[in-house]
Structure formats: C-alpha cells, structure tokens
C-alpha cells in the first residue's frame, strides 16, 4: 500500500537523469561539501560575538559590516558562518538519526522476516502503532517533558522513521526466502545468521539506500521543526531550525537572520528529496533488469 507518508512516486524515466535532477543533485552535493568543510571555509567562528556590530544587513545594503556577507545576528555573530555550521549540525543529526532508524528498523524487519509467528506479529503491531501515531507530536511531547539535549534529540530523530525500514526489510526478506537459492541454503544446513549476511543483506542494499536518502530529508524537516520550536538544538549552538526560531523576533527588522537559514533548509530538503527519487528510479531499473 502506498501511503501519503511515502515521499515520492515520481515519473519513471527508466534510469535517465533529466535536467532538474542534475541540478538538484549538484546542489545536494554542494551543500554536503559546504557542511563538511564548514570549519575551513567560514570567515568567522559560529559563536564569535561582536556586540558592537549587531543586526548588520547583508552585502549590498546600507550599514553592511565588512566580511559579514549574509549580515550579523542579534549578538553580532556572522549569519553565514552560523548557517553553514548549523547545516553541518543539522546534517550530522540527520545522518545519525537515519542510521539509528536503519539499525532499529532493519534489525526488527530482518527478525520479523526470518522468524514468523508471534515475533513477527508483535513487530508488525509495533509498526502499525508507529504509523498510527502522529510522530511529530510525540517527539514534541517527549522533548518538552524530558528536556532537550543532543542525545535525546538524536534518539527521537532515529525513532522517527524506523518503521519504514522495517517494512521494506521484512517484505524483501519474505520475497527472498521464497526464492529457490535460499531454500537450497536452508536445506544445505546454513544457519539464519549466515543466510542473513550472505544472501539477504546484499539484496537489501539498494532499497535501503533509497529509503535512507528519503528519510534524510524527512529528518532534516523534523529536526528543523523541533529546533524552531525551541525543543531541539539549544543555543548558543546553531542549527538551521533554531536559527529560524530564535531569529523570528527580529524578522521585521532583520529578516536575513531568518531567511538565510530558511533558504538553506528548503534547498537541502528539496535537493535531497529529488536525489532520493532519482536513486529510487535507478534502483528500480536495476531490479527490473535483473
């Protein structure tokens, strides 16, 4: 069943890459590179304050402060430097969250697929429950109750998408188990762990890579939303969402504090999503070709 939560079912172009996809992938790679190399490229430290040059506008406006190309924020910190560091943190959290989701969901899915019976029923009931619950709301409540720190935040982001992996892995495992070569391996006396590692995992790589990429963009949105509401990354540490949230008070006077990180969030989610979509197309082609 397709649900609305599945991000994209795009036009199938049989593995070809169109113009928009090329641009989007280019942007995604550029943004990743900026995040990775942020410490070496940014002109200022993300926490360096200059109380004398607060709220200065970006290049091209009056009162521009030299070197601060995207302006400064309410403590005179460089908006561009903070945004790139913020993106670095946002992406780190997203990768960590997606990995945790992959680990939890992948393991449970594998177990559910290999072991039938009440184990499978139990795990699938958990999956159903996770789908039924509006998770953003749950995340909000957990964080406002427990208080936010990076560990709790990463765990919450990880739990956010595990059920998608579990469903994919379980379905794939069940499909594979029915195939003759696996049956043969069973008969030959191979243990479940051996079968999982030798035969199942290699076949899971490509659907999981696709799901991982799509989850990445969802987690970026979730993290930004939580941080925007003040429940995610805490000051003075910048993340893109918290910059938008804390900068909101200054939006009428100094919109750049908000617009620069907001634009980065949109660019990030947009390009990563198109990239995930493109990966899915290619994976489908490969699967079909086999």
């Amino acid at each position, binding site marked *: 069943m*397709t649900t*609305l*939560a599945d991000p994209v079912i795009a036009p199938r172009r049989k593995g070809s890459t169109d113009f928009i996809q090329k641009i989007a992938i280019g942007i995604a790679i550029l943004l990743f590179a900026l995040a990775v190399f942020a410490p070496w490229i940014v002109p200022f430290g993300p926490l360096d304050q200059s109380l004398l040059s607060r709220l200065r506008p970006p290049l091209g406006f009056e009162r521009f402060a030299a070197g601060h190309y995207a302006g400064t924020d309410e403590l005179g910190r460089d908006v561009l430097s903070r945004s790139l560091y913020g993106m670095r943190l946002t992406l780190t959290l997203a990768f960590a969250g997606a990995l945790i989701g992959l680990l939890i969901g992948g393991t449970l899915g594998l177990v559910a697929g290999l072991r039938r019976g009440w184990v499978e029923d139990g795990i699938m009931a958990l999956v159903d*429950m996770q789908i039924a619950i*509006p998770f*953003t709301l749950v995340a909000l*409540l957990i964080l406002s*109750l427990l208080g936010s720190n990076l560990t709790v935040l990463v765990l919450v982001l990880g739990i956010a998408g595990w059920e998608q992996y579990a469903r994919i892995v379980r379905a794939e495992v069940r499909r594979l188990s029915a195939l003759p070569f696996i049956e043969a391996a069973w008969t030959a006396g191979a243990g479940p762990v051996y079968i999982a590692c030798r035969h199942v995992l290699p076949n899971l790589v490509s659907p999981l890579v696709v799901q991982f990429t799509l989850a990445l*963009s969802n987690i970026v949105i979730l993290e930004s939303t939580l941080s925007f509401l003040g429940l995610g990354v805490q000051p003075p540490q910048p993340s893109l969402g918290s910059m938008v949230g804390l900068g909101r008070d200054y939006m009428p006077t100094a919109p750049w504090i908000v617009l620069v990180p907001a634009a980065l969030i949109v660019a990030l*989610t947009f390009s990563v999503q198109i990239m995930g979509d493109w990966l899915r197309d290619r994976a489908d082609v490969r699967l079909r070709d086999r």
Partner: protein
Amino acid sequence: MIPYLIRVAVKSVVTLFAIATITFIATRLSGNPIDTFLGDGLTEEGRAELIRYFQLDGSLWQQYLAFMRGAVSGEFGLSFVDRRPVTEVVSDRLWASGQLLLASVAFTLLVAIPLGILGAIYRKSWIGSAVMMVAFAGYAVPSFILAIVMVLVFSYWLNWLPVVGNGSFAHFIMPTIAMSGVLIAALTRFTRNAMLDVLGQDFIRTARAKGLGEARVVLRHGLGNAGVTVISVIGLQVAGLAAAGSVVVESIFSWPGIGQLLVNAALVRDYPVLQFGVITVAVAVVAINALTDVSYALADPRIRLARS
C-alpha cells in the same frame, strides 16, 4: 466480517490503553509541576502544601490507579494551572483546531485533486513537470517556514492579512495554507499516480475507444475510480500530518487550538491537561484509522467475506 471488526476494535482499545499508560509514565518521569513552574521562590513548607493540594502525594502506583479509574469513568481531574476541569479546557480548544483542520482538508482537496489530474493527463508536457515541482516543493518547505515567510510578506510588509487568532475568514487564510502545504504535496502525487493507474486500465481504453471525449473519460471513469483510494488515504494520513503541523501553525498564528495547548501543558507539567489532551488526540487518530481499516475491508472482498 464480524471477527475482522472485533480485531479492529481490540487493536484500537489496546493502542489507546498503551498510549494512556505511556503518557502517564512520561509525565511522571519528567519531574513534578511544582518544581517546574511554581518552584520560583517557594519555601519548603509551601512546597509540601502544594504537593498535597495537587494530589501528587500518593505513590506512583496509587496515582496511576487513580488516573485509570478516572479515565474509565470519564473523570480526568482539574488542570494544575487554572483549576478548571480538563475536559472543559480541552474541548474549548478542540473546536478551534477542528475548524482549522477542516479548512485545510477542504483547501487541500480543492487544490490537490485538480493538480493531480492535470499532472496525470499532461504527464509528458511541461504542465506535468510543473505539477510535480509543486508537489516536491510542498514537501520540501516545512510549514513553519511557509508560515513565517507569509507573515513577513502579507502581514508585515503588505498589511493585508491578520496574524492573531481565529476571529474571521481572513484569519483562516495563512494558517490554512501553511497547514495544507505538505498535504497538498502528498495528495497531488497520490492523485496523479492513482489516476495514472486507472487511466492505464482496460475500461478506460474501452471508454476512449467508444469515442467519449477525453474530459468525460477522465472525470467520469478515471476520477470515480481513483477517488475511492484517494479518500481512504486522506482519512488514514491526514490526522497524523495535521496533528504535527497544527502545533507549529497554531503557535505562529496564536491559534487557540489543541496543539499549542498540549505543548504548553507539557512545558509547565500540567499533567491532567496533557494526559487528557493526548488521549483526545489519540482517540481521534485511532478512530480515523479504525474507520479507514473498515472501509478498506468493505472494499476488499477477501476480507469482507473471510471467516476466521
């Protein structure tokens, strides 16, 4: 069919029970409301007085039993903050959220279904690509960004639209759009794909072969058949997406709804409001899920006719 219905009912009740219990545990784990929001400048005796006053002096197990007994008999207690019955506090807010949700669903249907159809019919031309771009964009722009950029442009710069509360039609415009962004994106894609599936099927080709106009084919046969899936999917997913969006949108537009209420209640540890609020939302979500399950079942003869 009957055994299936029983299974759905049991599943719903178990889910609700689990949610109520988890909420209870989460609240008690998170510290007590007196230290959290009344602690500022309290003496030791004052603190003890307030713990008695809020009936937080029993053991956790006693509190849990009291909570469950209350829940079963519909008694959820008084808010710690304003000492009103929580049922009243929550129901005041529920209608405001409900209005916004309905407005968003209506707006989503109005925009997304035509867009999805256009996307399917013109999938090979630039119109189709444009529709897909809109769909991507809706997904990529988080609702808080959509909301604050609209506020900046339409309220602050242009002074066109009001930003506070739910007093009039104009108040609905920006919150509705902000809530609908993701929904429109999702539903547009879904409609488009459902239409593509349907348009590729035999009876459509037959209809075309009979010489019916393209518009009639699409509207009569295509939409009619795709519509069933579209609507059940809305039921299944809207609740979740909307519950998430509502917190953000309600806080930005000072909308007196339940999302804002829950987050505030969590921040000040107003357990009774939080517990009842979460249960209310959970009942709504679980009910919608159950209805969706049942409607799928009714549509699917394998389930409808199954005997256990």
